[in-house]
Structures are given as C-alpha cells and as structure tokens.
C-alpha cells in the first residue's frame, strides 16, 4: 500500500511535520532553544558529575558530587524566588492578574526546589555530619543553616495557605503580593545573614574560616568542579523556569475568563 494514496496515513504524516519534516522548523528552535539547552546541560551534569575526578577530602570523599545536585537546588530556588518577587512588585504597580499568576507559580516551583534541597541536604548530612563525624542529633538539629532554611520555606508555605484562604480574587492577589515581598525579604536574615554570624557544621560557616554560609566558591571548589557546577546551576534553573512556565500557561488557559482577554 502506497503512503501517498492512503489519506489516513498522509494526514498522520503531515501531523508529524513540526520536527520531523526535512526542513527544520526554526520557529520551534527559536522559541524552545533554552529547553533543549537545559536538557543538554543536565545530561552534561549527570555524566561529568559522576565521572570526572574530584578532590578526595576527609569525611566527605566522593559525596562532594552532591554539589552538582543539592547546591543547585538552592541556587535554583533563589533565582525562582527573585523572579516571583519581581512579578509581585509588577502586580502591585498595575494590578494585572496575569502578574499575580506568574508570581504564584514561580514561588511554587521555588518552594519545590527548596524542599528538594532540604531533603537532599538531610540525606547528605546523615552520612557526613551524623555518622562520620559522630555529631549528636541535637547538634545537627541546632544547625543555624537548617533552621534558617526551614523558616524560609515555612514562610513560603504560609504564602500558599494565605492564597487559599481568600475568596475574592483581587484581594487575594493584592494581599499575597504584599506577603510575597515580605517572604522574599525574610529570606535574607534566615538563609543569608544569620548562618554567616554563628558557627555551623555547614561548609562556609565561620567555623570553617570563610564568610559564606553556603560554600566558598573561591577556596572550596577546584577548577574542574566549577566547570561542572556552574552549568549545572543554569541547567537546573532553566528546568525550574520551564516547569513554572507550564504551570503558568495552564492557569492562564483556566482563568482566561477572569483575565478578560
């Protein structure tokens, strides 16, 4: 049976055209190049992250490879929260509901990244702080870095509780935009400032002689690791932006009657 003569097959084939047609559809690449970049960067992260040699330091050993995953979650979270914060301000400047939807969904994916960062950090800490350094559970639970990150995530959790408790859409958008700005401001004392001031098991705290609570990129990373770490941050962040974008587009379709478009 010839394909050209069968209308069913022909329509099926013509449907395939966006990617598989002989002429490459450049508008697809123009719009979606960063999604493919994200995929390629994360493939690079996994392959190079597991295979390239890392410095073998006591206690931490090979687990330093978590840097390409655990730390990237926090970087991604911070960038997504910044985007959410900007959209909340934009909402308050013009009261366009579209900006509120953007702010909400970037905050949601940011919180997801934060929670993943927290859980992966807990797993990592279990094998480096608790068992191999014989720290008591009490001293690990007293970690300023962990408490600060938990507070920051709970504040963002309250943002969603607040959103859910309004019936009036405009009031919900307005109050939660103001709250989102507050939540963003609270990130600074809880995860940036306080962990810098007090001793901590976490790399970079005053006890480990550098001022940075997360890690000291100048001294703690060797050049090879930096070549994987920074692409990994970009890759994970792009993935987060992509997922947030999907959530936003879905909500814009759902709420199109509210947006008067």
């Amino acid at each position, binding site marked *: 049976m010839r394909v050209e003569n069968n209308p069913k097959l022909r329509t099926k084939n013509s449907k*395939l055209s966006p990617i598989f047609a002989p002429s490459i559809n450049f508008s697809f690449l123009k719009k979606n190049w960063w999604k493919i970049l994200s995929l390629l960067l994360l493939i690079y992260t*996994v392959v190079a992250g597991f295979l390239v040699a890392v410095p073998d330091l006591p206690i931490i050993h090979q687990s330093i490879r978590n840097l390409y995953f655990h730390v990237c979650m926090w970087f991604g979270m911070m960038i997504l929260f910044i985007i959410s914060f900007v959209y909340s301000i934009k909402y308050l400047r013009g009261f366009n509901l579209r900006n509120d939807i953007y702010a909400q969904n970037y905050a949601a994916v940011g919180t997801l990244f934060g929670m993943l960062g927290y859980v992966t950090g807990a797993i990592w800490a279990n094998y480096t702080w608790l068992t191999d350094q014989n720290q008591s559970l009490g001293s690990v639970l007293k970690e300023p870095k962990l408490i600060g990150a938990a507070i920051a995530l709970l504040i963002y959790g309250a943002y969603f509780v607040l959103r859910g408790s309004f019936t009036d859409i405009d009031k919900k958008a307005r109050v939660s935009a103001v709250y989102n700005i507050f939540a963003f401001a609270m990130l600074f004392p809880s995860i940036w400032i306080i962990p810098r001031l007090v001793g901590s098991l976490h790399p970079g705290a005053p006890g480990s002689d550098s001022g940075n609570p997360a890690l000291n990129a100048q001294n703690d990373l060797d050049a090879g690791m930096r070549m994987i770490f920074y692409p990994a941050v970009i890759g994970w962040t792009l993935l987060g932006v992509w997922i947030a974008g999907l959530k936003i587009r879905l909500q814009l379709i759902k709420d199109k009657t509210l947006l008067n478009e």
Partner: protein
Amino acid sequence: MNKFILRLVFCVLSFLMCGVSFAQDNTGSADVMRSNGKIYVVVAVCLTILLGLFGYVFSIDRKISRLEKEK
C-alpha cells in the same frame, strides 16, 4: 505526534535495556559498565530518569500548546 514521540522514547529505552541484558550475560569479564566500581550503571540510571522526566515535561508542554491553540 505525541504517540510518535512516545514510541521513539520507548524504542530508545528498549535498546538501552538490550544493552543491559547483554551485559548481564557475560559475567566476570571487564566491560565498560562494570569498570570503576560500576559507576557507569549509576550514570545510566540517572540519565534514564533524566530523559524520562524531560520527555514527560516535553509532552505536557505539547499538550498545553495544543490547548492554547484551541482557544
């Protein structure tokens, strides 16, 4: 479109599975997947999860694009 991509992904995955099952046959020999403490197995597992997740997100992206065109 979507079905085609799913079929493509399935094909690629089944080829990968073939590789895994062949690797299991020649126990004892030093093949790539077994070298360096079998770290390549971990890489393969993580890559499969990553590709699966990206395929899933891509398919959701397509569905939403179709919804956007409908309105």
